């Protein structure tokens, strides 16, 4: 890197304005009010015939709409370009304009002066694709202003924090003061240094060549043209001498573009450093002040207004800031400004002061503490666009569908809707629309109550209740999603595919059910064939899955879809049955690998087997080959398996009728009587109970075996076994426990009152009572308990 020479910088600044030639090249920084102010004065004085602005030249057709009285910034031009090789995904690039953007101010002032207005950059179709499709990228580059050795060195010399702070310190402090000649000369010198420190790349040179061509054309147009060129400061030195910049390049294709309303929040989020000064609300406020007074803003009063405005906003939310903290905040801000040599507190000073005054503890990340204040400074304004400007197709599609389904899109009052999705097709269509809007996270509708489709058939909740409200934010979100597709279904499908890829990138264990859930959401949104790519990916993942519990849950979900006749019903083209079979096949295949599973995963594996059994026994199970499942379980039982798994396999086999219950009973009895320490003895029983609790409740040989064992052992052995038994029996649900207790009571001819005990406890209590009787305390017992003895 070559150190910029002071003389060179001065000379570069001098060359910007050549009144003799009729050319004024104005270096600006995007969204800088100081530049806008000086530029307005320049245009007033120069009275140009041509006004050229840095921006894709296919945006010329939007200029009239931008200047239409019905359009109020912040607005943006959104360009949608096809991504090479992808059929549905596109890149969305945004060109924002705020009231304090030099470009916007220039267009207005130029129109008032009667100049010809033109954009002069390469067409929007040539801008590079965003690295993450469907996430918007800015069309205005700002990188040189915020990074690099030149900026770092200047920051160190002036004591500024970063490139934004440096710009504020050097130039925004001059807002409303001085004359435009001096201002732009200084900006020019600053930017010439930038350019010298970071030489341009090939793409920048191509852009500058294109811009120079436009400048030459303007200079040759008419008798005595006066051409004002408004460009980002980095490019200004190149355009001072347009004849010298020649390069043959293919002009490049335009993209479809729309003028849309935009918000400060979206602007701030558009890439942080890469898109101009942050926290647009703050700069907008400065601009409003300077426009109102015609002079520099009263920095101290502005700081006071911002701090108290923020306190007021907090008070509305219910957080009260004590006044001493606000006073200290203001004092710190002014002190910092004085220490750093500024006329008044700037953005960074305000943020620093707020953090220091408000934080009362260790702050490992100051940004968290100032986030609320930063949000307040950023502002929430949404702009407006005149009627003539078209809308991106997705927004138009969503609006027309909403209107057809009788949802209001003209105001933002929330309304309630009750949808009987099973009975009325029109309601079904409305529900699909609302689910689709939810997939795109537009915030248009929220389900306040309704069936949980993922859990299964729900006899209780038959209807969906939604709270619906259109708002400018919904529109903004649709505009952001415009890159995903032109119609609502295609955009939803693309979004689901993106979510699928995100899950894949995160690659968490056992996330197969989550991926399957995406498919179900798409079905609820009424998507049909658009879900084919998703279904294909899911099929691939099922075939490769190695997690039995995740597979079992996925099987359950897919089976639900296959048998339902409600909103989750899938079109035949998706072939859900094939997916169900695939999941089943893979599970059966995995059963053979269960013996190698680590001990921690055994309970979930047993649950998986139980789930498969339930699916086989339920609706849709007849389409699956239960015999293969049973055969796999047999193989499992025959191999060396942990006792819990063996119990599960035996129990399920008995339920299916392939084994006699006597076999199971023998195994359980063997386990209980065994010499295993720890959980070994009742592990088998635990496995049976977890997988097939019905066995124990059937009052058959297994119950006999357990009962006999419990009756046989003496009390110390019983007490030793008790914790394991307790753990084993805890897998039963309340209903199963009640049923089991009834059986035990009947078996031992106990009255109903005694059946509230855990059956193992009941047997123990019975033993103790018997002991008491044999020890001759029967009379006492009879007295103590009344007639029972």
């Amino acid at each position: 890197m070559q150190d910029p020479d002071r003389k060179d910088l001065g000379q570069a600044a001098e060359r910007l304005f050549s009144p003799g030639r009729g050319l004024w090249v104005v270096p600006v920084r995007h969204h800088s009010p100081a530049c806008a102010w000086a530029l307005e004065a320049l245009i007033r004085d120069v009275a140009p015939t041509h006004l050229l602005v840095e921006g894709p030249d296919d945006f010329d057709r939007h200029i009239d709409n931008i200047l239409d009285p019905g359009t109020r910034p912040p607005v943006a031009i959104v360009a949608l370009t096809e991504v090479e090789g992808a059929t549905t995904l596109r890149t969305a690039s945004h060109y924002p304009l705020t009231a304090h953007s030099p470009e916007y101010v220039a267009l207005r002032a130029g129109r008032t002066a009667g100049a010809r207005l033109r954009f002069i950059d390469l067409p929007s179709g040539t801008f590079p694709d965003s690295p993450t499709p469907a996430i918007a990228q800015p069309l205005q580059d700002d990188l040189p202003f915020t990074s690099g050795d030149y900026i770092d060195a200047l920051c160190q010399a002036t004591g500024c924090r970063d490139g934004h702070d440096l710009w504020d310190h050097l130039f925004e402090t001059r807002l409303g003061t001085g004359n435009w000649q001096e201002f732009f000369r200084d900006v020019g010198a600053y930017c010439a240094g930038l350019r010298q420190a970071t030489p341009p790349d090939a793409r920048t040179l191509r852009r500058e060549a294109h811009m120079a061509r436009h400048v030459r054309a303007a200079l040759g147009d008419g008798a005595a043209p006066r051409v004002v060129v408004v460009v980002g400061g980095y490019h200004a030195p190149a355009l001072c001498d347009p004849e010298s910049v020649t390069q043959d390049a293919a002009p490049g294709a335009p993209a479809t573009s729309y003028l849309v309303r935009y918000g400060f929040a979206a602007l701030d989020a558009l890439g942080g450093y890469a898109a101009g000064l942050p926290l647009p609300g703050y700069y907008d406020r400065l601009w409003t002040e300077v426009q109102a007074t015609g002079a520099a803003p009263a920095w101290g009063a502005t700081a006071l207004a911002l701090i108290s405005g923020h306190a007021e906003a907090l008070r509305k939310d219910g957080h009260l800031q004590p006044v001493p903290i606000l006073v200290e905040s203001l004092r710190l801000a002014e002190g910092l400004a004085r220490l750093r040599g500024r006329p008044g507190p700037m953005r960074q000073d305000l943020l620093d002061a707020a953090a220091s005054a408000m934080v009362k503890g260790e702050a490992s990340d100051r940004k968290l503490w100032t986030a609320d204040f930063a949000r307040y400074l950023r502002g929430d304004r949404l702009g407006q666009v005149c009627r003539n400007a078209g809308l991106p197709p997705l927004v138009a599609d969503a609006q027309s569908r909403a209107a057809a389904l009788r949802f209001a899109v003209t105001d933002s009052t929330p309304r309630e809707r009750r949808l009987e999705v099973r009975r009325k097709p029109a309601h079904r269509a409305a529900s699909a629309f609302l689910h689709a809007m939810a997939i795109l996270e537009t915030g248009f509708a929220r389900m306040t109550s309704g069936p949980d489709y993922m859990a299964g058939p729900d006899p209780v909740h038959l209807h969906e209740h939604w709270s619906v409200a259109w708002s400018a934010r919904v529109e903004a979100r649709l505009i952001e999603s415009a890159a995903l597709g032109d119609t609502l279904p295609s955009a939803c499908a693309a979004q689901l595919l993106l979510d699928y890829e995100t899950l894949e990138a995160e690659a968490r264990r056992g996330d197969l059910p989550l991926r399957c859930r995406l498919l179900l959401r798409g079905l609820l949104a009424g998507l049909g064939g658009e879900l084919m790519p998703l279904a294909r990916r899911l099929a691939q993942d099922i075939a490769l899955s190695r997690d039995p519990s995740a597979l079992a849950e996925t099987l359950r979900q897919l089976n639900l879809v296959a048998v339902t006749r409600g909103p989750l019903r899938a079109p035949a083209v998706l072939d859900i049955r094939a997916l169900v079979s695939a999941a089943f096949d893979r599970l059966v295949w995995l059963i053979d690998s269960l013996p190698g599973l680590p001990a921690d995963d055994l309970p979930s594996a047993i649950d998986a087997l139980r789930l498969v059994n339930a699916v086989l026994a339920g609706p849709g199970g007849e389409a699956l080959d239960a015999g293969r499942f049973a055969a796999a379980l047999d193989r499992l039982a025959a191999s060396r398996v942990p006792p819990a798994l063996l119990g599960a396999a035996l129990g399920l086999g008995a339920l299916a009728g392939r084994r006699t219950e006597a076999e199971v009973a023998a195994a359980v009895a063997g386990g209980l009587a065994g010499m295993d320490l720890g959980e070994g003895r009742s592990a088998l029983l635990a496995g049976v109970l977890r997988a097939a609790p019905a066995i124990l409740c059937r009052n058959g040989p297994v119950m006999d075996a357990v009962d006999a064992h419990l009756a046989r052992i003496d009390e110390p052995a019983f007490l030793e076994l008790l914790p394991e038994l307790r753990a084993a029996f805890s897998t039963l649900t309340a209903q199963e426990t009640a049923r089991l207790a009834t059986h035990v009571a009947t078996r031992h001819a106990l009255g109903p009152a005694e059946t509230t005990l855990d059956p193992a406890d009941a047997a123990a209590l019975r033993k103790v009572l018997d002991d008491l009787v044999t020890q001759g305390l029967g009379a006492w017992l009879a007295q103590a308990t009344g007639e029972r003895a």
Partner: protein
Amino acid sequence: MVGEVQKQPAEIRFAEELARLAASDPGPRPPGWRLSPRAVRAFVTGDEARGVTRKFWGDDALVDRCIVSVMGLQGLLLVGEPGTAKSMLSELLSAAICGTSRLVVQGSAGVVEDHLRYGWNYALLLAEGPSARAMVASPVLTAMRTGQIVRIEELTRCPPEVQDSLISILSERTLAVPELGEGTEVRAAPGFNVIATANLRDRGTHEMSGALKRRFNFETVESIRDPAFERALIARQLADRLADHPAIPAPAPDVLDVLVTVFRDLRTGRTAEGETVAQPSSIMSTAEAVNTVHAASLAAAYLDGGPLTARHVAGQLRGVVFKDDPEDGRKLRAYVDQVARPRARSSRAWAAFCDGT
């Protein structure tokens, strides 16, 4: 006097720089301050043009905020992990602002109110009764009388009742001394303020009351983020400490690299390649790194009679850094096995490090 004590206060060590700054300082001075705020900042962060060295490596914006805090009526409380140079910053600021860093109260569980207000010379008290001669002023009272800065180290180690006696001093800026007569009080002269330091998360510290917190501006001093910075700092600190042992050479750069990398990996829980590392419970601060390399240099020079290698560093690591948690030893072992050994294959310094553990 120089050279006869282990450590001189900052205003004596850097007396020349302070004089130079005072002479060439045109800026306005707040009441009671010896230097203007810009000069104080130059003293702490360095100013090549005036021949002032940088003394605090960290966030310059933090220094700005500290200076502006002390200008006002709130106290300044520096918090952060141990070993982040909070006390050093406090010392530098008070030396520059009021010319003395020696008005210090050392916080501990044994601090009583007398340490913060005033005590008595009991012999004189009994002999003459209460008088100004019998009163022993605390550093706080002295600072109030002379309009200087009082430093309170480890504020949160003081019992809460004692901490709270600062509340009225900070808001009323006056200390009543009823023993010397009705209505006798000492009002703070302009320039009085308190700079306190605290470890908020250590054992043996008390919670500060809300009222006291409100009277302080909190500033968090963080560990150094830039590895190159840290390396340069460690090298300089080591050179200072070894000034008494001229025979010991400066450490080789690759040894310092190993030291800095080990400390950063264990401190942040993440290697440069992105692998996660179990963090020991002892704080792996820059100060500890300096201690480690200091001990290692001495061991290498006097016990082994050779140059400093990473093996000596490894040998000192356990003793200097890991205080009482046996788990830390295991974590170091895991770190050596998973991270250091692969690196040892391509670097001699890392191989030496693995040898020493």
